[in-house]
Every structure is written in C-alpha cells, then in structure tokens.
C-alpha cells in the first residue's frame, strides 16, 4: 500500500500565468483589494463613459474643420500657401537624404513622419466648403483618387520626395557635409520662402497658427542651444570680465518672467528704435524667446560641465590639446551627454512657452484658438473642443521630442556607461 502513495504524482507548484491567475494574484488577492478593484472599475467606467460620450456624442467638432485653415496657417493668404509647401518639400528632401545616410534614429523619425503623412494622405475625409452652413465641414469622400492626386497633391509630392531621397541618399556618405550645410541653410531659406520678395511678399503679421508656433519653437531651440553653451562656458571662464558678464546675464534673465521680456520686446523696445526703423514683431518674439531660453540652457549645460572630472581636462592638456580643442572634443561631448534630459526638458518648455506670444498680439496656435472662441460670433461656446484640439497638438509635438530624446539617450548609452 505504501508504494502506491509514493508513485502518486506530485503536482508541480502552481506557476500558471494566465490572465485569470494574474487578476487573482494582483487585483483580487485579499478582500480589501477586491473592494478597491471594484471601486476602481466603477470609477473608470464612469470616467470612460463620460469621455466617450463627450468625444463622440456631445462635442460639436464642426468648429475644427471650419477653422482648420486658420488653425494651421493663421491669416497667411491661401493663394500663397504653395510657399509653405515648397518649404516642406525642401525639408522632406533634407530629411530623406539624412535618413538614407545616417539611418538609425533619423530613419525612425522619418518613418514616423512619413506614417503620419500617409494617414493624412489616405484618409477618405475631406474638408468641404458647405454653402448652406456657410462654413467648411468634414465629409466622407470616397473618390480617393481625386483626393490624393488633386486636393492633396502637395502632400503627395512631399511624401514622394521623402521616400525618393531616402533611396537616393542610402550609403552616400560623401554627401554628409552637404547635407549638414543644407540643414543650416534651410533656416534662411524657410524665412525667405515664407516671406517672399519683390511685389508678392507675405508680411510676418500674416504668419500664424501652427506654422508660427513651429517657426518660433524651431528658431528658439536651434538658437538658444549654442548661446546657452557659450554662456555656460563663459560663466566658468577664468577671465573675470567674461565670467561676470555671463553670470549677470544669466541671473538677470532667470530673474524675470518670460512675459515681462515679451512685453519689453513688444512695447518698450520699439520706443527706443530711431525714427522709422522697425524691428519685425515676429523677429522680436523670436529674439525674446531665444534670449530667455539661453539663460536656462546655460545653467543646464553648466550642470553637465561640473560633472566632468578635472582629470579629463588635465589629461587632454597633457597630450597637448589647446583650450578650444579640449572643450570641443573632450569636455562638451561628455557634459552634454550627461544633461540630455534637462536640455530636452528645456526645449519642451520653450515649445510650450511660444503660446505666450499671443499676449503680445501674435496669432500663433493659441492666439488663433482664442480668436475663434472669443471673437468669431459663429463659434461662441466652442471653447472646449478648440482647446482640446490645441492641447492634443501640443502633446503630440512635446511627446515626439521626449521620445526622440529617450532614443538618443539609449543610443548613447546614457546611464549605462
């Protein structure tokens, strides 16, 4: 009889990992957790129900297609919109070539952009000017051929260029220098293209919407970075004049709200300008944003500089590197790598700070949104819909920046070695 007991199968310990088991272990393991889970479920149900019914039933989304044009480009004249597309084409070519040459992260970013573009190209919804309602509405249009090849031909061209130049650029490492040059030149090219020359100029007062937001953010981000690095180096300089000037600049700017700087730029600065000389309003805002962010950037970079052991500098000097070479090739690369999260955080803050320029009368995304719900008699009481859209747009761009920074960190192995 004893033998039978021995030969009885001993069951392995229960390690099943099915969803039911997971629920049991994590959500219903004790009586109080069960109660909490039930409460949470009820709560979530009502939240989702509320959100769902608002988004799909209550919200009156017609305000978005009707005002889509001004949300994107503001009062930019529609007959000049080709200028914006030319700029986008240029950027598509540069991005495509860069993706082909550098691959890796650039390729991933380009793929994401191409994917978003493709969705916009293929979705069979069309913004149609509705003569009865007197404003544009979003309608189904199954004539996808017409949509792609006629209405969205500029976007089609953009995507074609992006993909085409990717294949052209593959493994053409000799082009690297030219591409970098192209990226640098793309900025003045963008400004000239958007503004135009001769008779048919589009003055900057007509720049608006998402276009202006992106321009302000791009200029601010690109310009504040080198300025911030210089200020950080300046503050640590052994030459008292440079160190003092940098310190005073950083502390003064950090001690003043951005709004004050914007007001100074728009209200006080013009009074000091001699005679008929006027500095463009958009340029003033760009300069204000850049100067403001540079001060914060400087402190971020200085944090990184302090993290570099003195031994690194001494070693560099021992092998005979000059100060500029030591800084450029030994100190800065390590310092910047260490503070990528802080720098990207600053970029994101700058991107969102561009919304403040609407207070000085520039119609960037937020200014346009305010104008629609506060000014246009047709759209009074559509606050929530418009603000939700604006929030979504800001979120997409900020999250994209955050994502890219995480990838850069991963590629550089920050925090690992």
């Amino acid at each position, binding site marked *: 009889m004893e033998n039978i007991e021995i030969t009885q199968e001993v069951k392995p310990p229960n390690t099943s990992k099915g969803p039911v088991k997971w629920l049991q272990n994590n959500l219903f393991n004790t009586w109080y957790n069960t109660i909490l889970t039930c409460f949470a479920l009820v709560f979530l149900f009502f939240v989702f129900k509320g959100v769902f019914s608002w988004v799909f039933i209550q919200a009156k989304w017609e305000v978005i297609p009707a005002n889509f*044009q001004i949300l994107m480009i503001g009062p930019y004249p529609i007959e000049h919109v080709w200028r914006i597309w030319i700029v986008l084409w240029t950027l598509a070519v540069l991005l495509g070539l860069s993706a082909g040459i550098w691959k890796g992260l650039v390729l991933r970013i380009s793929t994401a952009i191409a994917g978003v573009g493709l969705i916009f190209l293929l979705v069979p919804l069309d913004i149609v000017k509705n003569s009865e309602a007197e404003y544009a509405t979003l309608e189904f249009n199954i004539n996808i051929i017409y949509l792609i090849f006629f209405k969205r031909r500029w976007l089609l061209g953009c995507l074609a260029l992006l993909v085409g130049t990717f294949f052209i650029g593959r493994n053409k490492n000799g082009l690297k220098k030219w591409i970098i040059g192209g990226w640098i030149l793309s900025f003045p090219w963008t400004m000239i293209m958007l503004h135009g020359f001769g008779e048919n100029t589009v003055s900057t*007062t007509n720049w608006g919407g998402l276009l202006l937001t992106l321009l302000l953010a791009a200029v601010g981000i690109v310009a504040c970075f080198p300025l911030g690095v210089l200020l950080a180096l300046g503050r640590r300089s052994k030459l008292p004049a440079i160190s003092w000037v940098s310190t005073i600049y950083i502390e003064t700017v950090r001690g003043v709200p951005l709004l004050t700087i914007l007001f100074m730029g728009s209200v006080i600065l013009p009074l000091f300008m001699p005679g008929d000389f006027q500095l463009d309003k958009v340029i003033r805002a760009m300069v204000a944003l850049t100067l403001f962010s540079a001060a914060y950037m400087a402190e971020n970079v200085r944090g990184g500089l302090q993290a570099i052991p003195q031994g690194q500098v001494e070693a560099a000097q021992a092998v005979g590197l000059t100060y500029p070479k030591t800084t450029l090739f030994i100190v800065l690369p390590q310092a910047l790598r260490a503070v990528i999260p802080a720098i990207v955080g600053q970029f994101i803050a700058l991107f969102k700070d561009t919304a403040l320029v609407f207070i000085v009368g520039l119609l960037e995304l937020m200014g346009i949104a305010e104008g629609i719900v506060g*000014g*246009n*008699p047709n759209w009074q009481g559509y606050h929530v819909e418009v603000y939700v859209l604006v929030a979504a747009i800001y979120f997409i761009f900020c999250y994209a920046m955050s994502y890219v920074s995480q990838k850069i960190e991963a590629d550089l192995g920050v925090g690992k070695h």
Partner: protein
Amino acid sequence: MRKFLFRVSVLVLAISLVTPLLADNHESVLDKVKNRGKLVCGVHGGLPGFGFLGEDGKWSGFDADFGRAIAAAVLGDPDKVEFVPLDAAERFVALQTGEIDVLIRNTTWTLSRDAELSTDFAPPTFYDGQGFMVPKSLNIKSIKELGGATIGVTAGSTTELNLTDTMRSLGLEFKPISYADIDTLYNSYEAGRVNVVTSDKSQLVARRKDLKNPDDHVILDVTISKEPLGPLTIHGDNEWNDAVSWVVYATFFAEEHNITQENVKSFETDNPEIKRFLGESGEMGKKLGLPKDWAKQIIISVGNYGEIFERNLTPIGLPRGVNKPWTQGGLLYSMPFR
C-alpha cells in the same frame, strides 16, 4: 589690412545707426500709405462683431470694415490693407512707433488719451455705453431698483469706476464683486452668484446670446457712461487725420442720402452736395489728397454706415440705438461736403 577693415566696419556701423535719426520724419502717413501701396491697420484680435479672424483667414468685423474703407478711399482697393491684431497695452505704442497707420480697436475717446498720448481721434464710429443686465424674474425696470444688489464687474476697468460713481451719486447701497476674467464673470452671473452684471452694452448683448436662456435676461434701458469708439491716428499728422475722419463722414453721409453699395454706381441726382460726394463735381478728393472718386470707392467696397452695421453688428444682436443718422434721432452727423 585688418585695421583698415576694422575701421571701415566701425564707420559703416556708425553711419547705419545715425542715418535713421537724420531721416526726414515729417512725411505724412498719407504719403507713406500711398507709396507703400498698402494700409496697415491695428485691430482687436478677437471681439465678436468688431474684429476677428474669419474661417477663411481674412479679418472680419465692424472695425476691419472701416480699415477696408480707408484703403478703398486712399488706394482704391479695399483689399490693400494689412491687419495687425493688437493687445490693449501695445495698441498706442504700435501707433506711436509707426508700426500701424491707423488704430481701429474699440478705443474710447477720452480727454487723457487725446491730450497725453501721442494720438489724435477721428470721429467715433460706434457710440457704446455701460449698461446693466438682470434676470427677467427679478422684474427690475430702472437703476434705482438696484439698491442692495450684488453686481458683477470686470476688475480694474473704467466700468468698475463708473459703477461706483453712479451708485454713489444715486445714494444706493450695493455690493460689487470684481472678476479678472470675463468668462468667469458671466458664468457667475448665470450661476446666480451675482444678481446683476454691468459692462459695455455691446458686450452685454453679445454675451446674452451665449447664456442658456437668453430670453430670461434683460438689458436695462439705462446707460451710465459714454464710450465713443473710433479710429486713431498719430498726433500731429493733420493731413492723415483729415483723410481718416472724412472716410468716416463719408459712410455717415451715404446713409443719410440712401446711397448704398448697390445703387452707388448708378446713383443719379441733381443734389450738388451728393454730386461733390460722388466726385462728379468739385475737387473734394484733391483737397484731402485723395483720388477724385474716393467716397464712391468706399461705398462700392463696404457700403454706407448702415450697411456696415447690419453686416457686422446686427447678426450679434446689437440694436442700432444711438448709432443712427441724426435725421433719425441718432448721433451720426456728417459734416457738409463742401
């Protein structure tokens, strides 16, 4: 060589800094606008009926239409105008620095603004005034019945001062509650936290439309302040101020004589004044430094005052009120075209 380049660059810099100071600044804005071929007009960035960016990316509203009228008169084309949305704080600076040629942004004509700021006013295009909105259920008919009421008002505005002045002069007790934000003010009113709300009548009318039951609220038939709103030009440029003023008068004049956008091209008359107005006789345009058919162009482009009003302000529910020709008992009075 280096030293030479340095000296040259210093010289160039110095010259470029000094030149603007030496430049002749006494050119009239009128000539500047003509040379530029474009009028730059400061407007409100978003005020229902007065100035806002339409769905098609073009500026709309009562104020914007007067900007178009000036462009039509000076340049013969209502589209040759560029609108600059301006904040309340920077509007006068923009005018003083020449960033804009004319400011048409709901600006009240007051003594201080006329005398202290470097600005000159053209005739008011809209006579606004402070009023009161109350729920119908309270059955209030006159301001004297507002004793003891809780009155909502926007903080730090002349509205607040006007309210205190009026109530004190009537010897009425009241409890003012100030709100920094306009939306909060009307939300509180709707929620019943304040019994009465006071503001410019144009605002009350526009806001009443957005309340849940607009018919449950009345705007009292009292006006406790004068808010004449009109265009502004830079101080001391009489030529330009004359041109802007007469553009405004032209819209008044056309309504007085029933000249409309529709009939202006074929308007037949023996009235010598109307003939001068239409540019068929006399040299009215030349005297102002404007083209012969300047007034005709205004009416072709934007219509007479009544048409501008009906296009922009009637849809938001504003009654004509005192903004009627003097012949109908209003305040709009055109000076003679002689």
